[in-house]
């Protein structure tokens, strides 16, 4: 059996067809070094009218708006939106928690699809892309520097080919990310955000501190002028906890941090759902406060509609504060 091409595995033909005429547009202006397709905070060469101003010696005479000058009896220069390039930085959680699911429903697979789709769109429109994967307690930062090379997609595919395992060190990841962002960047963090860090003792208070540290880190990127989007990928089982029978189940932490928990599924479900929902609500509220976009995707849904919705959300189209699908 021939091994599927990693890009083909992440972006099947149907998905590529769905994204063929789409663009990755970010709602907030971006400042890119090169001419791109995103709104720039500075006026420059572009297609879209921005404003008129009085002619100043040295302006390009080709930019004189004779019609406006006739009206105003003065020489007026037409200003247009500058279309600068976008830096896209993907930080991907490669911990064992992303391994849940089978086949196309695997969370890791969906994370890869989202990352590959955004990368493909960005590269097609001349944006620069960089990515980092945190896995097994380590960081893969080789491709973190955003570049507009087309091999970025292949590198991404190769990076996502290995299965997730171990733990994701968010703190080290964000520390590595910050210095690599020389200008406004769309930072996309892809994870399940269920347990970004915590003690092996499982104390909820300590785990919450790690949650907040992550949000603070991402918010600080936002404060530094970057756009931050959190793509939360969950499996339906994590939302619904389908083990409601009296049979005893043993839940292992795929990140290897927490002790296994045994118990009859039926007696664990209600408490789990209460705590999960509380955490999800906290995440939503924290993202809203920090101006972070939070998109929640279920791994068993079709990826194309999810990605189209995500693109629309990124482009600033009105919708729910949190884009969610079939969530609680």
């Amino acid at each position, binding site marked *: 059996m021939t091994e599927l091409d990693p890009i083909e595995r992440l972006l099947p033909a149907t998905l590529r067809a769905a994204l063929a005429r789409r663009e990755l547009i970010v709602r907030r202006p971006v400042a890119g070094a090169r001419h791109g397709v995103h709104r720039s905070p500075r006026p420059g060469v572009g297609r879209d009218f921005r404003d008129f101003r009085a002619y100043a010696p040295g302006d390009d005479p080709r930019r004189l708006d004779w019609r406006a000058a006739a009206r105003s009896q003065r020489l007026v220069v037409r200003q247009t939106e500058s279309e600068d390039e976008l830096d896209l930085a993907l930080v991907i959680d490669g911990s064992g928690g*992303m*391994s849940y699911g089978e086949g196309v429903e695997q969370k890791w697979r969906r994370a890869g699809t989202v990352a590959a789709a955004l990368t493909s769109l960005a590269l097609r429109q001349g944006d620069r892309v960089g990515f980092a994967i945190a896995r097994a307690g380590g960081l893969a930062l080789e491709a973190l520097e955003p570049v507009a090379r087309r091999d970025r997609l292949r590198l991404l595919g190769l990076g996502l080919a290995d299965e997730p395992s171990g733990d994701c060190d968010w703190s080290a990841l964000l520390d590595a990310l910050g210095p690599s962002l020389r200008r406004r960047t769309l930072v996309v963090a892809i994870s399940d955000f269920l347990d970004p860090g*915590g003690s092996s003792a499982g104390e909820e208070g300590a785990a919450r501190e790690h949650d907040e540290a992550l949000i603070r880190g991402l918010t600080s990127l936002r404060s530094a002028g970057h756009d931050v989007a959190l793509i939360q990928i969950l499996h339906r089982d994590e939302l619904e906890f389908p083990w409601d029978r009296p049979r005893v189940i043993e839940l292992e932490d795929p990140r290897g941090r927490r002790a296994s928990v045994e118990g009859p599924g039926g007696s*664990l479900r209600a408490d789990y759902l209460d705590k*999960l929902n509380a955490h999800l609500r906290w995440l939503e509220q924290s993202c809203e406060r920090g101006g972070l976009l939070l998109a929640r995707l279920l791994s068993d849904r079709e990826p194309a509609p999810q990605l189209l919705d995500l693109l629309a959300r990124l482009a600033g189209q009105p919708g729910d504060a949190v884009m969610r699908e079939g969530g609680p």
Partner: protein
Amino acid sequence: MSLLAPLALLGLLGLSLPLIAHLLGRERPQTIRFAGVRFVRPREPVVTQRRELRDWPLLLLRLLMLAAFVLVLARPVINSEAAVAVLAEPHDTVILLDASGSMDLRVDGKAEHERANERLDSLLDAIPPGSRVGLVIADPRAPEVELTPIAEGGPRIRAAVDAWERGEKLPPRAGAWTMAEALPRAATLLSEAQELPRAIYAISDPTERGLGSLPELADGAITVIPVSTRGAPGQPPPTPPEHVGIRELSWEPALELDPKAVRITALIHRYGGDQDEDLEVGAALEIDGEEVARTRVKLRPDGDAAAEFSHTLASTGAGVRARVSLLDRDDDPLPIDDRRHLWIAAHETIEVLVINGDPSVTRANDEIFFLSTALRHSELADSLSVRGLALDQLEDRLRGTQNPLAKVDVLVLANVRALPPELAPLIVERVAAGMGLWISVGDRVSATDYNARFAPLLPLLLREAVYAGTAPGRTEARSEGVAPAQLSHPIFAGTLRGSSEAGELDLGATRTRRMFLLEPDPRRGADIAVAFTSGAPALITRAHGQGRVALLTTTIDRDWGDLPLRPGFVPLATRTIAWLAGAQNPSSRDAVGIGVAKQLGRSATYSVTTPAGASVPVTPKREGEPAVFEATDLPGHYSASANASGDEQASAAGLERFVVEFDPREADTTPVAIRGVALDGETGTVTIYEPRWRELALVVLLLLGIESGARLWLRRRRTG
């Protein structure tokens, strides 16, 4: 200790099953690598460690319970010291099982009849194949099993004994037959078996009426093999536990207290006991179900004590139910003899019939004048009905009337010549049935005739009438005085020396010129109430059957002395009449043993009321024969009413009362040595086992209760 079914111990291997099941058979949990472990908290303290043995105390308890159960199945027994000789070759045998009251004796917490059942089981298991076995229980109403091959006979015998003990058809009762009485029945079952050796295994207790009553051979040829419930043949018998019982219960009128007063005496016996210690026992008297008196007595080991009660009946005439019970004897090993019953009926009047042997128109010379006068003025005058007859009138009455003396309580023969030989037995018979008889002598009394016709009645045989001073040893005095009365005699019961009553009895001034001498004979059991100063009896008494006889060896008039003129004559005469009248009323003291048939008085249909309140009809089996009541199963009061017609008088006349009592001889549990038996032919010995699996079964039940409680406690502790 040994095990009858040791292979059952293999079940102990099964004890490992709970452990194996616990360690290996635990439900393997489904393992899920789940990113949301952070949000999972077990509600129950589920073990999150791997494969740990929890609740080990409960597991240990359950293993112990299972082990005890396995041991019960292995049938542990303790070898008894009893080893019974059993014919090891095929033979014909009948098992004779004791059903007497002594089998209720509890030794070491187990009744003798329970031990007998265990012996029965061991015997049935030991009788070799090819044998035939039958069963006789020493109760004529119990089921019998004829000779049957052992394979089939064993279960039939066990079923028959179980059915009899449960009283499925008829209740078991104590003492229906003694072992000696039942032995011929067992021999009869073997009478036609001649091919194989024959034996009778007699299972009973080592007492005189149990195994001690059996011969070595039955029918002259069948070996009787004793199987004792306790002890081993040829060895000293084990000492039974001490127990106390009422041996006898009697009553008599206490006319000296009140015309309606009765005196009830219970003879209590202590069987066995520590030689150094007296035992104090209480007894209570109940009249018609209500306790009216209590008393306490002290008993020496193997000794008797009489508990006396005096009670004044509320009414006379109708029978009164009396019962005496021992108190605070719940732990008595043989409780069946701790109570006895009586029917009591106070006399409305005492019918005294005085036969005047020497009538005279001159009252002072009349033989019975002084006696009649004394009785008329006595304190019993209202209770006495005194009538006089001449001798010929008595003879006519005896000849012409059926039961001529049925209503007479006391017959006085005052200087009467001896009755004809054909009539004297009627007097003897009536006294034996409870009538009192007072004989006073005189000129008309012939020692020869009286000795010939009234010998069974006389306290001592008459010798000759002598004059005072001519008695051996006395040559000078012309009259005899009377010594102080023997206050210990029952005639003077209740009279204390030095009391006014004793003073009233003073006959010291009496002078008697002539008296009858008597033949000394200690075997007759006579009792002197009053003696002459020479020591010769003046008033001497004796019991005969249910009745009493008093003999005055001088005249009751002034012929031979001045006794009637003394003030002491009135109380003497009154007390003597009262004592004679106090002979037990056969209709109220009629007692039969448990299981013994009671013959009723008439050939009529009766309705018998039992102590349980049931009414049992009884019809004579053949016309002309008296009815016989056989359902004497329960100790207590019975009354039989004949011909329940509308005529109250006829019904009252047909009402017979009797009690059914436990035979006191059964209470004697004094052990006797049981002989060993030498058997012809191939013999073996079967060891009698004392089973212990019942005790273990109780342990299992106890552990089950503890396990349930522990499980409940642990569950509550977990759920908080």
